[in-house]
């Protein structure tokens, strides 16, 4: 009896792993198809610009406010610790490095997946459910080129920019709390930050992270929408999967990238 239960657990694990790997394979083939059908998106930039507006510009408020508050909280929490070691002047460094290296790309990725990624999945899923994608296909218009690729590239373009805005506003939030509120010297705040934050090692690596997350989130969003079961329940499940899978992908990729970028570093 116990053996049977154990065997069942292994069977389920095996089935789930096999399904997961198969799905990952499909997603990779889909990515290849999206990239190879990107001609329309590149020759008609208006299609991408429109999606940058819906995915990126309309996410500005939530990303900006989140960045500001996270910067402010970082400053408050950091001050608590730094002041014990008499290093409160280094608050600028703490806030900037935390945001540029980690929180900027990661939190923006999570917010982007929830705000824009889920919307893209729901939109493409509903287009599939209401036969809009089939209608395009019958009109000899490739839905991957016309619908999927512009949304994918818009995500890849928007997210790193949003991450940069997030980090910028976060640093400003840290400044607002640190300098006028906690009384840290403004020169020390900015000066130490300038000296300690390295363009290539910190900023560029942060940008690389946000680009990788952007590709992952955008791919997950368009793939889940295109691959969803064309029913109300199917679209709902796909939207949830986009948010959950994106969050896991961002955190797992962040770990892998951090290992390669910052091991033994500052």
């Amino acid at each position, binding site marked *: 009896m116990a053996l049977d239960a154990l065997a069942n657990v292994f069977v389920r694990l095996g089935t789930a792993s096999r399904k997961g790997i198969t799905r990952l394979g499909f997603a990779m083939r889909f990515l290849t198809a999206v990239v190879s059908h990107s001609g329309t998106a590149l020759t008609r930039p208006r299609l991408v610009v429109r999606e940058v507006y819906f995915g990126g510009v309309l996410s500005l408020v939530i990303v900006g406010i989140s960045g500001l508050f996270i910067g402010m909280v970082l400053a408050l929490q950091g001050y608590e610790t730094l002041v014990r070691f008499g290093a409160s002047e280094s608050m600028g460094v703490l806030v900037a490095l935390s945001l540029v290296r980690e929180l900027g790309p990661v939190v923006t990725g999570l917010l982007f997946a929830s705000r824009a990624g889920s919307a893209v999945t729901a939109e493409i899923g509903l287009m599939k459910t209401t036969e809009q994608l089939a209608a395009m296909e019958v*009109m*000899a218009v490739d839905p991957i080129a016309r619908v999927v690729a512009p949304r994918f590239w818009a995500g890849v373009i928007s997210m790193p920019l949003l991450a940069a805005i997030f980090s910028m506003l976060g640093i400003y939030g840290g400044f607002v709390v640190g300098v006028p509120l906690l009384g840290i010297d403004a020169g020390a705040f900015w000066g130490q930050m300038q000296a300690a934050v390295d363009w290539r090692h910190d900023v560029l690596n942060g940008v690389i992270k946000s680009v990788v997350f952007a590709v992952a989130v955008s791919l997950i969003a368009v793939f889940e929408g295109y691959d969803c079961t064309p029913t109300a329940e199917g679209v709902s499940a796909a939207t949830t999967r986009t948010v959950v899978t994106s969050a896991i992908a961002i955190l797992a990729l962040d770990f892998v990238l951090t290992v390669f970028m910052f091991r033994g570093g500052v």
Partner: protein
Amino acid sequence: MAPFVELADVTFGYNASRTILSGITLAVPRGKLVAVMGGSGCGKTTVLRLICGQHKPSLGEVRVGGRSVAAMNREELQAHRRRLGMLFQFGALFTDMTVFDNIAFPMREHTALPEPVIHDMVLMKLNAVGLRGTAELKPSELSGGMARRVALARSIALDPELVLYDEPFAGLDPISLSVVGQLIRKLNDALGMTSILVTHDIQESLKIVDYIYFISEGRVVAEGTPEAIRASSDPFVRQFVDGEIDGPVRFHYPAPPLAAQFGAPVGARH
């Protein structure tokens, strides 16, 4: 003269265990309006999908203009699709575009016409379906019947040779139903198109079509002109035309005996 659209002994299933069409043969002459009728789930829409090349038959051949659709390469298939229009069951209008942009969509995608020309052409198409005044509305602001007419205008945007209608009457009130039916007939004749109408609305179809095929369980079970169908004594046709609940098309989905499912002992009558 060879028919314009021809299904020759076509068998098709979405998977190996479930066959949708089994050896179906039908022919649509150029310029005619032909209805393919049958109950829900009998494979009517699949016939349209095979004609526009979304699926390939497992056996047999689908020919349009004398050419096998399954044998077409990607470019040929795209060219084939540019020559046909399809009206989907619920219109399938692009919800993020206005009515005007919906109809302009195939023109902008497939032609290099200047915008003023597209503007005039779109208004002409909208005028043909009586909805010129809705150009700036979004599909969500239209009634079901109006959405169907806009979709009809979009399907004829590039003056196709062949138009496929998938359940164009579903869910319409009697007035909208009659309007859509008359439009289908008039557009077919005025633009010299060939039309295939998939529907289960027998009364409206009898008024407008040239020929009818009845499909049941993946086969053509009856065919004829509207007059011949009205006069037919075929049990299937009679059940369909008269709307009888039971007949060759069973009311009950196959199931074990009721008594057995209620747990009554074998042989018990009460």
